[in-house]
């Protein structure tokens, strides 16, 4: 059965306060090369069949909030 990976990320203009905390934690662990961390969501879908228009609709209607988030997806198998 085809699977779809949906990636949801906070819009770049918005402060990711959790990402900022993780940035600081990585730097404290000695990873000084890390300038910024942004945390998103990875959502796996298993679908009967792949219809891109419907996947987009799922993202727009529930999986992502267009006010604050961007989304992308890839179809696997």
């Amino acid at each position: 059965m085809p699977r779809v990976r949906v990636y949801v990320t906070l819009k770049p203009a918005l402060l990711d306060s959790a990402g900022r905390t993780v940035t600081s934690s990585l730097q404290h662990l000695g990873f000084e090369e890390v300038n910024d961390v942004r945390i998103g969501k990875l959502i796996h879908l298993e679908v009967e069949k792949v219809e891109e228009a419907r996947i987009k609709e799922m993202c727009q209607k529930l999986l992502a909030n267009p006010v604050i988030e961007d989304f992308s997806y890839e179809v696997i198998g």
Partner: protein
Amino acid sequence: MKVAVLQFPGSNCDQDALKALREDVGVQAEYVWHNDGSLSGFDAVFVPGGFSYGDYLRCGAMASRSAIMQETIRFANEGRPVIGACNGFQILTESGLLPGALLKNEKQKFVCKNVELEAVNQTSIWTSGVNKTISLPIAHGEGRYVIDTDGLKRLQDQNQIAFRYVENPNGSVDNIAGVVNEKGNVLGLMPHPERATKELLGGNDGLLILRALSLVNA
């Protein structure tokens, strides 16, 4: 006046709201369960705080797609009074009844304290009785109000900012603590008016907002 207090799995301010409405505001109030309830016979809706559906996906995301919220959207669009506090505010933004969204507090910390609020809009049914700076409790980890620049300008131009924090506790844009829709019948705010309805609770400024319900003819 009969108020529907919505209940979702994970709501936890529903009992406070029902008690405050019945005992301190002096109106009728009943719980309405999210998937089999109806708003028929009700004159107003209170969307309580908590962690509806475990705040899965995003705060308020699942609750805003529930059957009772589809009915609440129709109810609100008829111009009837709807208020959402805390998670209720998140549900109202997720449902599209109010603009903007709520994100993790700027400093990542759950904030739980009383805050001072300046009443900005003083013309909506919810805010016309608030004629001074009020003090209400907040208790949230995701209360940072965000909206894009154009949206913020619209809120300011159309007098839709209901309350501003005197001291910003969460990084909200323009110190926004609560907003109303264009018609003014829908109010969403992070502070909890239902937790401040008698001196025994540490203050009764919440009544200045909730008493709107006892003034509406229904």
